[in-house]
């Protein structure tokens, strides 16, 4: 029932953006990343040779992306009006949905994790809720809320709360017995127990849940924009499909892929920092 | 049957290299039970893995029945130090034992029969359909001995086979080893760091030094048979040999009286 950990990439060290010190770092990066440029070149050659409209060459895609999104003034980081119209709303939905689901998931998760009785009553509901494919909500919500941010946020929150919730339940439930007993012996109040013992010791689990949620949030942001939106990257994707514009379509996919990649990296950086603090704190207390 | 000449092995290279074997010469003749003792981490397992062809030594060679060992020889079985990891948890005990027999081209029926026989020898006839993880540590170790026995190897290598079982089980397993070698005409190389055990089971005790391992003693054990846990251990020769091996293991020079 757990969202299993192995699905997480173990290669936090493969960050190509890291600043390698000296020649050895460069050599290491080359030996690790050489296939990426090779793949790009093969992609270029392959698409040129095949010459089908559905598979434009990477250079075509890059040119299209530039002309769509990067023809603005330097003062705006060259972002075009189109980019400024569509990127921020998408990001806002993504982060707002993820943050809301994160807070709600942690709060509910701690409650369910610490109260065996409550969990017993709610368990089937949680498992049922988790099993509903979140895109099913779109046709349900669109007539209720009509197209707009509220409906998109609801979809994202509903879809991504489960990994956080279940992981938090897991973390909060299996707090080291000795830690809890120590807290009781020294008469820590309920709030102190929550902040000083339960939450810190659940942090690794909570982060595992948040990481799964983040990539899920990206997926749901896209689908909610594809189905019902008037702006956003997903909306542009849909527009490109309707206009039969494969280069624009690929461009949007590339942007979303880059977004996913950057989000992953950023999350790993934050997680490492937070969890190392966690480890250090555990050692000193 | 086994001739080891000037065997050396170094793990890694450069400043972090670790020289585990520093030139081992050892001959074992057919039917012998040789115990190898040495301090922890000296390179006993490394020696055994070189003999089994699981590791390519950096120098010297191992000759088994006249042929140099390059890959794992056919007529050889290993009882690993880490028995619980060497039994396959997804197979029943009987399947664990009969799996290697596939290599000998035995049919299904024959394999089952051999497995059953081996289990009876180690006193686990009732556990054939259990899974390894349903057994206690000592029982698991007996299963891995049974697996080696069923294979009927000419040479059996045992790496601290009784290392992690309780004292009573350990004595039982020692006696089991003595018993089965009487039944089959096997050559056995048994690694241990228990000095008592080496003298009790061995025909010969070979003592290795700290890393890089060299042979610092090679003693013949001539104790009256059949050996048994109480009388043999009280025998004056046993006591003397034990003290001798102990001195060698601790790196002291041998007393001139017992150098053979």
């Amino acid at each position, binding site marked *: *029932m757990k969202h299993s950990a192995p699905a997480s990439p173990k290669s936090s060290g*493969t960050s190509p953006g890291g600043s390698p010190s000296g020649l050895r770092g460069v050599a290491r990066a080359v030996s690790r990343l050489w296939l990426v440029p090779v793949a790009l070149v093969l992609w270029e050659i392959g698409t040129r040779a095949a010459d089908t409209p559905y598979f434009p060459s990477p250079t075509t895609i890059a040119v299209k992306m530039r002309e769509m999104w990067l023809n603005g003034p330097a003062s705006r980081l060259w972002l075009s009006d189109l980019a400024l119209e569509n990127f921020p709303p998408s990001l806002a939905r993504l982060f707002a949905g993820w943050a809301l689901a994160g807070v709600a998931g942690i709060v509910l998760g701690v409650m369910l994790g610490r109260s065996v009785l409550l969990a017993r009553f709610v368990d089937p509901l949680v498992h049922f809720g988790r099993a509903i494919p979140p895109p099913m909500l779109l*046709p349900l919500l669109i007539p209720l809320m009509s197209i707009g941010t509220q409906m998109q946020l609801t979809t994202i929150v509903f879809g991504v709360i489960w990994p956080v919730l279940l992981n938090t339940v897991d973390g909060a439930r299996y707090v080291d017995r000795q830690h809890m007993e120590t807290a009781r012996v020294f008469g820590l109040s309920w709030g102190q127990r929550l902040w000083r013992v339960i939450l810190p010791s659940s942090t690794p689990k909570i982060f595992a849940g948040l990481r799964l949620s983040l990539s899920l949030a990206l997926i749901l942001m896209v689908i909610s924009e594809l189905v019902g939106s008037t702006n956003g990257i997903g909306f542009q994707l849909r527009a490109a499909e309707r206009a039969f514009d494969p280069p624009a379509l690929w461009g949007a996919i590339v942007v979303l892929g880059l977004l996913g990649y950057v989000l992953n990296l950023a999350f790993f950086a934050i997680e490492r920092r937070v969890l190392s603090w966690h480890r250090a704190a555990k050692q000193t207390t | 049957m086994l001739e080891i000449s000037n065997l050396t092995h170094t793990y890694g290279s450069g400043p972090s290299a670790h020289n585990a074997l520093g030139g081992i010469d050892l001959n074992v003749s057919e039917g012998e039970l040789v115990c190898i003792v040495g301090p922890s981490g000296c390179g006993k397992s490394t020696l055994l893995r070189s003999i089994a062809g699981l590791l390519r030594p950096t120098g010297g060679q191992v000759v088994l029945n006249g042929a140099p060992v390059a890959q794992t020889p056919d007529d050889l079985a290993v009882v690993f130090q880490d028995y619980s990891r060497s039994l396959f948890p997804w197979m029943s005990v009987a399947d664990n034992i009969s799996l290697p027999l596939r290599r000998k081209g035995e049919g299904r029926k024959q394999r089952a029969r051999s497995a059953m026989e081996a289990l009876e020898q180690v006193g686990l006839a009732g556990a054939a359909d259990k899974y390894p993880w349903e057994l206690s540590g000592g029982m698991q170790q007996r299963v891995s001995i049974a697996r080696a026995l069923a294979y009927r190897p000419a040479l059996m290598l045992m790496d601290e086979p009784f290392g992690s079982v309780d004292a009573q089980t350990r004595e039982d397993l020692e006696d089991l080893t003595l018993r089965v070698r009487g039944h089959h005409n096997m050559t056995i190389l048994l690694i241990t760091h228990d000095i008592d055990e080496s003298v009790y089971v061995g025909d010969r005790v070979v003592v290795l030094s700290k890393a890089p391992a060299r042979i610092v003693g090679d003693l013949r054990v001539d104790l009256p048979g059949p050996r048994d846990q109480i009388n043999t251990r009280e025998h004056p020769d046993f006591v003397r040999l034990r003290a001798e091996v102990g001195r060698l293991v601790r790196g002291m020079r041998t007393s001139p009286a017992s150098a053979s």
Partner: protein
Amino acid sequence: MTRQAVLGNRVLCGALGVAGLLLVMEAAGRAELVDPTVLPLTSTILTRVAELAVDEEFLVNVGATMTAWGLGLLLTVAVTVPLGLLLGSLPRLETAVRPLIEFLRPIPSVALIPLAILIFPDRLDLKIAVIFYASCWPVLINTMYGLQDVDPVAKETLRSFGFGPLAVLWRVSLPSTAPFIATGVRLAGGIALILAISAELLAGGSDGIGAYVIKAGSSPDGLEFIIAATMWAGILGVVTNSLFIGAERRLFRWHTARAGVTG
């Protein structure tokens, strides 16, 4: 004492929880606290849920979704597991391919649906293609991870009896990786359902639960049917997930028993 018995029984508590929620919602609807055009009465929804169970049109659509789901997963397993085994057994190849995986994996799979709509005229092909793309990652990553986790002593044991590398792969690496692969396939199963339904929502002229829901949306009491179909999608999710978990428990008892994992 009876109270103890009730509170100690997980199934009973769970059932009470579900019944309680349904009753509260029904009461709220009857008391007109909730607008029935926003949330229909629970009893109405439950009736619809029951009706759909024998509704031929709906069942055909469920069949279509599950066909795509099953074929997509099958294709994923058939392609990805051997690939994962290959990558996991050849570390140099793995290091070379790793960055490609790390770049491709974060692409949100649903973003490929519009492209797939253009490329695949056939709706089943379309669904299978996007399901494949989305569900290959958990299977691939878990296969590779599991392969790294194979006990070297177990491999050496087989080698010591003179078995070659292929025999070791087949008899040791594959069985001990199997539980990890199974976990990957179970996670992939959940994702595949999301993708199948998303594709049905987006690609016109498709059939399946998603298409059914879109069609229901245009009828006057469509909301009731949409909610009922959503319930069924949840039930399908629960059932398939439980089947996977049950199969894993049965097949890999050795794994869970050893690792001391429960649930």
